[in-house]
């Protein structure tokens, strides 16, 4: 296990001899998912770096929405929390959290919502609440925040998380935010804007959801990662697309932006 797998930064160069860390690859691969632009609801932590990288690379027109009540953020420094004052100065609009969640998110104006997860299952259901029993938890996690309503109300949901047997699980300890049910007909009838997660990007690979079965399907391996390694780091046997591809490696510019501008302390990457 490297330092990166438990969330710590560091070890950026030389890991696997590739010249970038697994976390950096995850951030870069996630940012590229935002190339279509639109309105993006930014979460705390990694999504914050991802969305700000996308805005500086593939999607300069991206409208960043923060749950703290900011639309069209244009941060001059990497926001250190989702309520950083740099999000306010120079933004398009600042509003109450009621307006943000009701008029922007619930009314369907958000194209992409980003979620992290402590646990995810094969249908993209997410746990950020507890490990173990709810009443006497082994680990008490933060809970929903805005995740439950992002999962339900954003048109697309992208998940970014580190992968392992304890995070890619057969059965969640708690379902904080709903994904796909496994029954496409049921999902179409349930009448939400969202359709469950569309992409999951981890430190090892990239997954999409099968049109027919709604099951998470391995679509790309990051450079230097083997299929066996992916299998070892999840609790179920993954379905793999027939034309399994390799994620294009990070460019020098992407790495420079992460290291010099977005996360110079190496906190997340």
């Amino acid at each position, binding site marked *: 296990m490297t330092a990166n797998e438990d969330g710590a930064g560091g070890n950026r160069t030389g890991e696997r001899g590739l010249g970038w860390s697994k976390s950096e690859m995850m951030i870069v691969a996630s940012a590229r998912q935002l190339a279509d632009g639109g309105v993006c609801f930014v979460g705390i932590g990694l999504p914050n770096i991802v969305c700000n990288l996308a805005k500086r690379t593939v999607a300069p027109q991206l409208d960043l929405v923060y749950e703290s009540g900011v639309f069209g953020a244009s941060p001059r420094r990497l926001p250190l*929390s989702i309520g950083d004052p740099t999000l306010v100065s120079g933004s398009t609009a600042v509003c109450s959290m009621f307006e943000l*969640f009701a008029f922007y998110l619930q009314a369907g104006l958000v194209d992409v919502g980003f979620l992290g997860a402590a646990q995810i299952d094969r249908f993209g259901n997410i746990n950020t*609440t507890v490990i173990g029993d709810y009443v006497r938890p082994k680990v*008490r996690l933060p809970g929903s925040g805005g995740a439950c309503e992002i999962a339900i109300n954003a048109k697309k949901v992208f998940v970014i998380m580190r992968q392992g047997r304890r995070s890619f699980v057969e059965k969640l300890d708690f379902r904080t935010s709903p994904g796909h049910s496994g029954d496409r007909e049921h999902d179409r009838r349930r009448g939400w804007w969202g359709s469950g997660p569309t992409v999951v990007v981890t430190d090892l690979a990239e997954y999409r959801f099968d049109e027919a079965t709604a099951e998470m399907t391995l679509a790309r391996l990051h450079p230097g990662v083997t299929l066996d390694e992916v299998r070892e780091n999840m609790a179920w046997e993954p379905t793999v697309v027939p034309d399994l591809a390799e994620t294009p490696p990070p460019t020098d510019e992407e790495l420079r932006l992460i290291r010099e501008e977005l996360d110079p302390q190496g906190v997340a990457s």
Partner: protein
Amino acid sequence: MSKVATMKDAVADLVRDGDTVAIEGFTHLICFAAGHEIIRQKRRDLTLCRMTPDVIYDQMIGAGVAAKLVFSWLGNPGVGSLHAIRRRVENADPGPLEIEEYSHFGMVCRYVAGASNLPFFPIRSYYESDIPTVNPRIVPIASPYDGTEVYAVPPLNPDVAIVHAQRADAGGNAQIWGLLGCQKEAAFAAKRVLVVCEEVVQESVVRADPNRTVIPGLIVDAVVEEPFACHPSYAQGYYDRDNRFYLDWEATSRDPEALAAWLKEWVFGLESHRDYVEKMGAERWDSLRPGDAPSGQVNYGEYA
């Protein structure tokens, strides 16, 4: 009529044992100084409400003021965990803490219902989530018009709401800019309201820019002028978030003895927030001072 008071008197007057208390402010304008005064006055059995309990509730719960926590995201934003709260929830150490949990939008709408004198508020959250199974106060209901299923959350009417503003006049008319969180909703929902501000200003300053008034003096019981009261949170345009403090809190909060020592040194050992500001030192405050980015001015027009 002036409502200006000292923090000591305002807390003594407005916050009582067993109260439901909301110190709101989403990352921005979290009134730590009021929390510290509640600790200092040894309030007990409070029900603490906040969307994000943040370091302030970790300090208050670590100091033993609360019996219950109502929240929607429990963490040290951008850093990690709130260990004093986690010890109580995971191991009942040093005693159990009752929790009542929502999502962010659910919490906001609880205040909206409370502020609007409504019996519930309907939202499109919680479908196929386990949150309603552990919180029976979140209830699915059908629209009386077309049967659409939505979830109802109950009103939240705190006994006292404490909100921080950049400026207020002596009557309690409070003006805020930057992130607005749900302070307005919490204040209108509460039975008693304490406004803390960086500066008490003349009423004419408020009247020159009425769009910026978030909380009217009409609902305010007391006004306390307390510069830097939000540290390590921030006040837009006045001082930055002290991220170093949030990072350092991880180690302090993890160790019960370190937490007790911190409370002794920074809360019980001091008379007031003035002492805290002095003890923190000018260098720290200088490092948190932002540059200038003034708003443009609008013309309200003179209609005599």
